[in-house]
């Protein structure tokens, strides 16, 4: 059995009368790419928002287990604490910092791994200067890995769409997570870009050793890269298993009207 990184037990989220997430169980192990799929409005994004501290879940248990460390129960944690614990995310509708440069966007991701304070910033002593240099270098190298270095000093808002998506991933990676949560990273991409994304995600897993949990609608991408798949519908988890199992699962076929799954 592989080491678990994320363990979510019967997570529930109510918005007034609407139960957007209903007793969902999900786990991600070290070295895995896990996909969370389901029709629009199934509650996938809400699930992400709950486990990253943007919403406080109504019920359930969320634990992250940093490799080789003790489990941390993160219910009710603020988002930055969860990022600090080692889980970083991207957003379904891109949320970059539009008026910061591409490099600065990534540098912001280093915030939780650096320490200089107000006085340090004003006096700019050797510690701050070194840290600042390291931040720039780290961020620039990350941009190189993501093929974004040519945009380093452009404003994020001026980037082409596909590059913005990749920049969001780069920014999340700058926080040095052990688990990366991607919310529909291929949304709005053309087949060529989707193919590149496929390679990129595999590369992140293999070369950086970061495990991945992703929400995705592109079935070809999901079936290609996932080790395991969880399926949600109307807030409930209706199936889980390997891509092969999911493909054959009658409930899933019904939920998707049997079309896309075979794509």
């Amino acid at each position: 059995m592989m080491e678990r990184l994320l363990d979510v037990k019967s997570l529930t989220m109510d918005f007034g009368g609407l139960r957007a997430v209903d007793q969902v169980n999900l786990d991600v192990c070290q070295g895995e790419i896990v996909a969370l799929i389901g029709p629009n409005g199934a509650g996938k994004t809400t699930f992400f928002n709950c486990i990253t501290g943007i919403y406080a879940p109504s019920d359930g248990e969320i634990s992250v287990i940093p490799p080789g460390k003790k489990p941390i129960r993160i219910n009710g944690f603020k988002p930055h604490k969860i990022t600090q614990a080692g889980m970083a995310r991207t957003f379904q509708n891109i949320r970059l910092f539009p008026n910061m440069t591409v490099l600065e966007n990534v540098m912001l991701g280093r915030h939780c791994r650096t320490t200089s304070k107000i006085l340090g910033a004003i006096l700019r002593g050797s510690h701050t200067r070194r840290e600042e240099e390291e931040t720039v270098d780290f961020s620039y190298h990350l941009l190189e890995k993501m093929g974004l270095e040519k945009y380093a000093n452009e404003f994020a808002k001026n980037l082409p769409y596909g590059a913005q998506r990749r920049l969001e991933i780069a920014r999340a990676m700058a926080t040095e997570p052990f688990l990366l949560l991607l919310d529909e990273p291929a949304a709005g991409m053309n087949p060529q870009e989707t193919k590149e994304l496929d390679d990129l995600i595999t590369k992140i897993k293999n070369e950086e050793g970061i495990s991945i949990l992703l929400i995705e609608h592109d079935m070809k991408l999901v079936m290609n890269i996932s080790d395991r798949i969880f399926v949600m519908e109307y807030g409930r988890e209706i199936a889980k298993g390997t891509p092969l199992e999911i493909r054959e699962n009658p409930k899933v076929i019904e939920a998707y009207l049997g079309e896309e799954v075979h794509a």
Partner: protein
Amino acid sequence: MHIFEEIKKSTITAVWFVFLTFPIMVIRVNTIHKTIEWRWDNMIMVAVGSFALSFVWRYFMEHRQAPKPEAMGRGVPWIQNARQAIKHPVFFYSAIALLTVFAVIFPFIFSRYQVNIMTTALIYVMLGLGLNIVVGLAGLLDLGYVAFYAVGAYSYALLHLHYGLNFWICLPLGAGLAALFGIILGFPVLRLRGDYLAIVTLGFGEIIRLVLENWNEFSKGPSGIAEIPRPPIPGVELSLSESSVFLYFLVIILTLFTVFVVNRLRNSRIGRAWIALREDEIACQAMGVNKTATKLTAFALGATWAGMAGVIFAAKTTFINPASFTFLESAIILSIVVLGGMGSIVGVIASALILILLPEYLRAFSEYRMLLFGAVLVIMMVFRPQGLVSTVRQTYQFKGLKKDKEVG
């Protein structure tokens, strides 16, 4: 065809203006002779004036829409050339040298009146740079900034009155107390953004003023506190005009200090967190930034400068009362930040000087000066909504990269 459309629209505007201004511009009731005077010539002036203005306005609006915002400045060759020229070290250093010389000889070639208004303008530069942290960098619309200015001024006045503390001790104390008030205001408004935040901070500013106005035992109420000493130099007797020259230099030094600190803060880990918070609060938190701490530092550091400026203001005027700390003051400081370009240090300095000095030098136009002032503001907002100086991209040197290349 097009021109007829324009004439029609301008005519409608003119008629509308005539209608609106009719009671004040045309009718005049003479209460002594109990007669009504009809000033038709005024009506013609309003009609012609508003027609012409509306026409010109429309013309400019049309031409303004043509270039895309990003193309502006980047595409225009002379602006680009000017930018490069400014960046050139020879130009840059000679400009700095000239400015320094001018600043140093200023009090010796101009009258005391000039020195005083320059000092005031520089105090506003400090205020503008301080508020720039809160509004321009962290994106928190604070309409009660004057409260911290008041805290600084009253700290000095009261600490001197009751404990005889002198200016030099009160300067950091006033700044510190204002920072404390910044945090006190920061806590309840942490969850608020945009208009809600604006309203609450506006209320906070008014509360501070009302407390100062009504709590007579504490602050001496509307009659204020007088005989606040000017900044002393130990062992030296200063005459009145020497004292204002001294204050002028002190404010110059403090302004430079402010510029230095704000610039360093902006290009730091904390500065980036402020800007990111302004750009997207949720993404910023999700990337590991502690929202609470970041907002509170912005409020506290912004307030610090207001506190310091307040102490200097009290020392300069030697008399303070709550009337100096009204909402109008907050509005002026905010205009400085907005006009200067959110987050831009050079822009804020320039706009503080323009906004404070302009009304002074427009005194020649007496009653029209505020009108002119308003017109300048409106024109600015229409033609350069991003402010005098738009955000400049911060670029970085990739040291590691260079090393890699040398090795490889």
